[in-house]
């Protein structure tokens, strides 16, 4: 059982109201050390995790949103964001952080990590996975 598995981490909860988003991100970072094929999906209220400009000073909690920008450094480059979830909430990709990774095979060219997908396309992504993580 030492082959690589395809892991999809599902993010469906808003940040700060509950800790799931943050503790989920901690698992994602750890998983990078295991050299699996890791993807992240953001749907439903999970899309709120990626909204830029978060400032938690007033609620006295740690702002963990900068960590998403570091995912590329952990070689986590497939971040699926569901279109229907954005639209229902009146959000566009411009409201979200711009997440990138550097492709060492192409002279470290900077590439987008976020892939905007429809619900049907996300279903296809789910179907390809070996393990689905939920928090």
């Amino acid at each position, binding site marked *: 059982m030492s082959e690589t598995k395809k892991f999809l981490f599902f993010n469906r909860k808003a940040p700060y109201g509950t800790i799931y988003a943050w503790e989920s991100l901690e698992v994602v970072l750890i998983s990078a050390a295991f050299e699996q094929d890791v993807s992240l999906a953001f749907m439903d209220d999970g899309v709120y995790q990626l909204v830029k400009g978060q400032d938690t000073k007033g609620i006295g909690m740690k702002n963990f949103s900068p960590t998403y920008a570091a995912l590329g450094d952990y070689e986590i480059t497939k971040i699926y964001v569901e279109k229907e979830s954005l639209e229902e909430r009146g959000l566009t990709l411009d409201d979200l952080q711009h997440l990138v990774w550097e492709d060492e095979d192409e002279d470290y060219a900077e590439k987008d990590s976020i892939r905007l997908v429809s619900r049907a396309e996300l*279903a296809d992504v789910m179907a390809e996975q070996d393990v689905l993580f939920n928090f």
Partner: protein
Amino acid sequence: MSILHLVNKSPYENSNLNTASSIMKSDDMLLLIEDGVYGAVKSGKASAMIAGHKVSVLGPDLAARGISEDKLADGVEVIDYNGFVDLVETNDKVQSWL
């Protein structure tokens, strides 16, 4: 590569059943447990969401909530914890909608 979709919340309080039912593929299965079992009651408005899917419901959770099997939507299968284990085994992976 079929998925077992697990929903444990009431569809009248929470949107998980709605999301799950809208992303399921035709080979996938839906299992309702805990407060999720309310979604299988035929006379409730939420039962419209499960139409067209392969749906099972956990019998012990139904009984706890006073729902007799004749109240269920057509085609819903009632299973016990052993049947739950079988569904996890026969599908390729599990998606818990939390």
